[in-house]
């Protein structure tokens, strides 16, 4: 029970800090919208192409906005050495990871909903068609990405060039989640939803199980000095 309270406390603290400063949300959102703009100018997709490339563009935007968010994941902890303050508390260090991870996960979801809506606006994506599938896929894809992103953010926080190191380490490792999410989204948007849809959703579930438990176990070695 204690583990959940501790995680909830850290999550509450991050949400409150974000609510007060809105640093992460604004930067991620702005960046996401800019990426959409870039896609428009880079590809000038007509309706046929958006159908085909829509899922890919969507998840590319999510990934880039997500990386921006992850880079700031431990910024709050670095001021005043607050991370050491957390480590000094009688807390299971896994709870620190879970609290931070869920906070990042939440921020990404908020940004993704807005980006998703703007996608329907700019590229007249027919979203409502498959809303329930879309929600599950986004939840699963973002959870795996946020989990790997959080532990790699904690790792690259100790390096000299942390904002370069994070994407370098995160993108290759999180690729299967992106592949799964893109394929699932594409399958969700074909008229009779492609039979690949359930397959890729199951793939994402397995991916999440592995890549939430593994970082939970490894996180204490990242904090330890």
């Amino acid at each position, binding site marked *: 029970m204690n583990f959940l309270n501790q995680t909830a406390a850290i999550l509450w*603290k991050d949400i409150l800090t974000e609510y007060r400063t809105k640093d992460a949300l604004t930067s991620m959102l702005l960046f996401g919208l800019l990426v959409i703009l870039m896609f428009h100018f880079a590809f000038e997709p007509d309706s046929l192409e958006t159908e085909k490339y829509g899922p890919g563009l969507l998840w590319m935007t999510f990934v880039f906005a997500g990386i921006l968010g992850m880079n700031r994941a431990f910024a709050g902890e670095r001021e*005043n050495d607050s991370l050491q303050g957390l480590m000094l*508390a009688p807390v299971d260090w896994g709870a620190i990871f879970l609290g931070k991870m869920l906070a990042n996960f939440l921020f990404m979801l908020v940004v993704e909903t807005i980006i998703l809506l703007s996608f329907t606006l700019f590229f007249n994506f027919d979203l409502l068609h498959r809303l329930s599938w879309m929600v599950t896929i986004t939840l699963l894809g973002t959870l795996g990405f946020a989990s790997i992103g959080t532990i790699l953010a904690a790792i690259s926080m100790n390096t000299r060039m942390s904002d370069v190191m994070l994407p370098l380490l995160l993108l290759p490792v999180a690729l299967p989640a992106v592949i799964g999410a893109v394929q699932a989204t594409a399958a969700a948007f074909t008229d009779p939803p492609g039979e690949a849809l359930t397959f890729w959703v199951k793939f994402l579930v397995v991916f999440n199980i592995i890549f939430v438990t593994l970082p939970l176990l490894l996180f204490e070695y990242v904090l330890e000095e």
Partner: protein
Amino acid sequence: MHTDSYTSALRIENVEKWFGQNSALEAVTIEVRRGDFMVLLGRNGAGKSTLLRVMARIVKPNHGQVEICGMDVRRNPEAARRRLGFVAHSSYLYRHLTARENLRFFTRLYGLEDQEQRVQAALKWVGLEASSDRPIVGFSRGMQQRLAIARATLHDPEILLLDEPFSGLDLEAAELLAAWMKRFAASGKTILMATHDLEHGLEGVNRWVFLDKGRIVEELTGAYTVVRDRYKQFLRERKGELS
């Protein structure tokens, strides 16, 4: 209040700690009995703060045994840390939260009961009631340190670990800290402070330990003035040497 029976508050046996190739602590053995007020003196880099962090188990020693209130820190780090109050140079506080929110966060993190009363009492005691609902980003260094002291007392620790707490404090905060330390020691609890400033908060110290190059060089139990001269001589002997 969990007043259990333990005689040795802090016991570490031949603890070694290397950071890569250079050793920070070498075969350090100390026992701090309940009620002791021990001060670690030594130059920067002598291993004082590493020793404190090994005791609080945020640094894992390469070798050696660490026990807090008779409990092995490796087996149950959380129970051990519940008994420790740690005040260091940095305040561990969150700039964008208000004083009250900061304290509330830590009461929740520590899983304490009657959280609101504890937060209110702590704020009142360090005199930050008036500005308890403004983000602490606007606080002076002294006010932040007072809040950090309030934070360290929320869970009624048995043992107080202090790592250069007086550095950067204004007079008012320094006096508050010294007064609190005195009351803390008087109530039979244990204090271990690492410092190299010989002016503040040193009444009631009953054991002085000199550290150099990660090793305990000398221990004294004399009066403050005697110790101060010996410490100055200790530093002179090691002028030029690498720490």
